């Protein structure tokens, strides 16, 4: 059973142009005491604020801008579903720019994502993300961050970028390419410095191959801001310095990879 409620507080985005990002309400809100009307701020809260900041700056550059982030809050948790009013009131309380609320069961949530034309699905649940990815929806795992930045920082894992196409492209890879192209276009609206959005590339390769990844992304309209070529070194020390909000690779990836 899937149901969708529009948030009348927020202006709906252009369905053709907007980049639909679905985040689970479990990631955004923390269950507080039952007596409270409003939930606490969860792991994904800073991320939503960063997405909102990008939208705000995009509209400052061009008030008629239609390439914006369109945030959808998806609730699969049965407990939270019973508290749908609380989710909606908490969203309003914090002034979050969420355009739609989706409620579905654990079995149906991928269908819900597809129905809502979701281009990126973010969850703190390590089962949900791969499930969505297998059905062709680009997904990433969210984790608690220390000192998250105000600037939206998206990290691409470059090993996927260069892999030669062996056979038809998996649906999730096409989804990744589409999303990255849109992100690249958004990024171009801002200058080199003082951008509310930052694109970071990390590759396990050495230098030569990474050059190719930078060029390939550029040909898709994605101008990377920062690049880290690890040449076999593990990612975690770099991740703790770069602090991306989420990490994208072929279809599904987590911050701890």
């Amino acid at each position, binding site marked *: 059973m899937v149901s969708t409620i529009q948030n009348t507080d927020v202006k709906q985005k252009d369905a053709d142009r907007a980049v639909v990002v679905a985040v689970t309400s479990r990631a955004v809100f923390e269950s507080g005491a039952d007596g409270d009307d409003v939930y606490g701020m969860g792991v994904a809260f800073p991320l939503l604020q960063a997405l909102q900041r990008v939208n705000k700056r995009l509209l400052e550059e061009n008030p008629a801008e239609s390439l914006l982030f369109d945030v959808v809050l998806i609730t699969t948790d049965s407990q939270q579903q019973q508290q749908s009013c609380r989710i909606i009131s908490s969203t309003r309380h914090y002034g979050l720019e969420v355009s739609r609320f989706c409620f579905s069961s654990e079995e149906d949530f991928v269908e819900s994502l597809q129905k809502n034309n979701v281009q990126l699905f973010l969850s703190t649940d390590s089962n949900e993300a791969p499930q969505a990815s297998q059905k062709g929806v680009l997904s990433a795992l969210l984790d608690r961050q220390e000192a998250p930045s105000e600037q939206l920082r998206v990290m691409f894992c470059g*090993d996927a970028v260069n892999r030669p196409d062996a056979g038809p492209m998996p649906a999730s890879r096409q989804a990744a390419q589409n999303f990255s192209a849109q992100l690249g276009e958004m990024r171009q609206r801002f*200058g*080199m*410095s003082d951008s509310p959005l*930052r694109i970071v*590339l990390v590759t*396990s*390769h*050495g*230098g*030569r*191959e*990474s*050059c190719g990844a*930078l*060029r390939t992304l*550029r040909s898709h309209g994605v*101008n*990377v*801001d*920062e*690049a*880290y*070529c*690890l*040449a*076999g*070194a*593990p*990612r*975690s*020390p*770099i991740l*703790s*310095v770069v602090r991306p909000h989420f990490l994208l690779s072929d279809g599904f990836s987590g911050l701890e990879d």
Partner: protein
Amino acid sequence: MCEVKPNNSAPTEDSGAERDWAAAKAVFDSLKTNKPRPPKPQYAVTIAVSSRTLFDMVAERKIYEDQGLEKYVAYQVEHESDPLLPGVAFPFVKALMNVNSRLRKLYPDSEELFDIVLMTNNHAQVGVRLINSINHYDLTIERFCMTGGKSPIGYLKAYMTNLYLSKDSEKVTEAIEEGIAAATMFMTQTETLSETQLRVAFDGDAVLFSDESEIIVKEHGLDTFFEHEKQFENKPLAQGPLKCFLEALGKLQRKFYAKNERMNCPIRTYLVTARSAASSGARVLKTLRSWGLEIDEALFLAGAPKGPLLQKIKPHIYFDDQMFHIQGANEMGTISAHVPYGIGQKYHKGKLIEQPAKKE
């Protein structure tokens, strides 16, 4: 000062890091590359070089300063197939590569090698030209950090950097304050240097050793200094910012000695100090001995200018804390690197200089 690569990390940390490394190795191996994998930072001697020290980017820098960031990046992208000219750290990097190939022949499986990392706060779009240039000269630099404007300090720590070379003295100062050996390099016209032996020259006080004795000279004069050094001849000096780097070089040198290659060792170290052998020199040698460190040649100048001697040595890099000596060495064609540490920063040729207000 040597905390960057702890030898005795807790077992749980080790196994976590080992798993990380095993996993990363598996991914890297699956990428089917012919080039030897660069060594693990914890065993290697990691040298981070900036783009402007590795390559000559003087003209490009001018574009950045005159026309701004966007025009600069556009220029670099437009010329990304044109390899850049070698910079001041280029001979040093080639010498490091030579040592690596000698080490690989003697110890094919060892990860105790030089690991050269490009650490630049250039934008990743400029990175394409940098990578193309690195490939053009066939330099074995595989690890890059292109931070797009952010400070490199966090990354220096993440890569367990043993030495950081840059043209930007602010970044170098920041690195030293964080306990990472670092030096600011200056452009110079140099004669051809040895291609078979890496030569590294160090000043003593405030470079290998702390500035405790220099403080005595500056504040109480030379005579007090001589008396003090004689009195404390047997008390080791405290360590300075480059001590750990000398230690790292020594570790690699011993690998050659172990294989009977002492006479043909591709690393040679020099101490070039204004101290005199008769009076204040003994303390220096005893300090090195107490640290278990060797230095191949110790040159005590007793205050004579360093330039002519350095010209004879022809080091790939010379570290000194005083700009006065750096300039002198540079004028005579020696590649010098300034270590902004200690009381020497407040003086120029013996006179106290006005300190500019620290930038916020």
